[in-house]
């Protein structure tokens, strides 16, 4: 599976340990400098309102500050763990926000959010982003839309069914097919990228 370079993962693990064991605010600040931008990209994608998106980012990192001890390496990389905290808080926020405005802002799936390959200066991260974007784009459109509504939009299965006017079973089926396909695509990609013997 694609992942960050090993050095970055060690660095991140040490930062989380410094927060958990030494209550080191500088280590938290460093994690924020590393992943605040991705976290904000995610919350902005989930919640259109920049003020609320920032709140969620702040809350997530404060969560990391308080609960760093709950991180363990078998929960995946620090980055994945951190972003899952951001995502969970984003979902909570969205669920509290159920409003017409949100329906309007989320139903359009902006494809260009997936594609533009500039801006990011870390080549490693850029490649990773392209691989995941391409995997998403390789899904049949209805599967991708359903996954994005669930993950980025924070919609429940029944809300998606209402939104897209499809039966509940179809929503679950699309999510499952889409995730299966992503699983194959993303695993395949990694194998292609392994060094030649």
């Amino acid at each position, binding site marked *: 599976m694609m992942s960050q370079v090993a050095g970055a993962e060690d660095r991140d693990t040490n930062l989380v340990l410094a927060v958990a064991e030494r209550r080191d605010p500088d280590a938290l600040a460093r994690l924020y400098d590393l992943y605040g931008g991705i976290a904000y*990209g995610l919350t902005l994608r989930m919640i259109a309102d920049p003020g609320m998106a*920032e709140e969620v*980012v702040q809350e997530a990192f404060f969560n990391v*500050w308080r609960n760093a001890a709950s991180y363990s390496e078998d929960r995946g990389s620090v980055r994945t763990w951190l972003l899952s905290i951001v995502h969970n808080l984003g979902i909570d926020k969205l669920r509290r926000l159920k409003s017409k405005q949100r329906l309007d802002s989320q139903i359009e799936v902006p494809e260009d959010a997936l594609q533009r390959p500039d801006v990011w200066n870390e080549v490693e991260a850029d490649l990773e982003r392209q691989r995941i974007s391409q995997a998403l784009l390789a899904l049949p459109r209805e599967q991708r839309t359903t996954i994005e509504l669930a993950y980025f939009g924070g919609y429940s299965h029944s809300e998606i069914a209402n939104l897209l006017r499809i039966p509940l079973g179809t929503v679950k089926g699309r999510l499952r097919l889409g995730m299966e396909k992503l699983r194959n695509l993303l695993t395949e990609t990694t194998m292609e990228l392994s060094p030649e013997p």
Partner: protein
Amino acid sequence: MTCKEVDELLAGLALGGASPEEERLVQEHLSSCHVHNQVADYRRIAGMLPMSLLPRDVPDLTKRRLMARVYKDLEPQLLRPPVWRRAWMGLAAAALALLALGLGVRDYLVTAQLAAAPVQWKLGSAGDAATTGTLVYLPAQKTATLMLDRLPTLQASQVFEVWLIKDSQPVAAGVFRPGPDGAASVLLKGDVGSYDVVAVTSEPGPTGSTTPTSQPFVAGSLR
């Protein structure tokens, strides 16, 4: 819930789309049934999805707010009673807490005294302010420079006042006003290294107070 029903929900669950009730039922099922080995993969895939997005620049204010909360969390004793005696004792406790952070201050201090090299301490926000600072002490010259950033706004009639604290007793060490960028640099004379804590409060200007009349908004251990 049957295995088939569980399988139908796992993808949605990993993506955050299952209801709390569905989540509870699935978790209950998974605790006793181990044939659903795609769970971890789905979670892993879901965890990759944010990496498909471009990072965005977070406004500076977000980090300042976050770090202010962090420092506040780190020194809870500083926030509570509006009683001075207790506040200063809190500062002394915070000084010990900072020492326990393993900042290596003591080692640094020992080395510094041997070489009479400058000694440096960090100050952190002690209230709602986002102020941070550094105190650099020159033991040979018995002078110190206190550098502060992101000072809170100050009423025209007020000044900031620096306090050096030893055995919970604050000693006035000078007043100043912030520069236009909210930063300030203050020269302190004396054996700064013999105190326990440095702290800054807002006081009536232009001369400040002889004992503090407000809570410190930034403080640091000198131990």
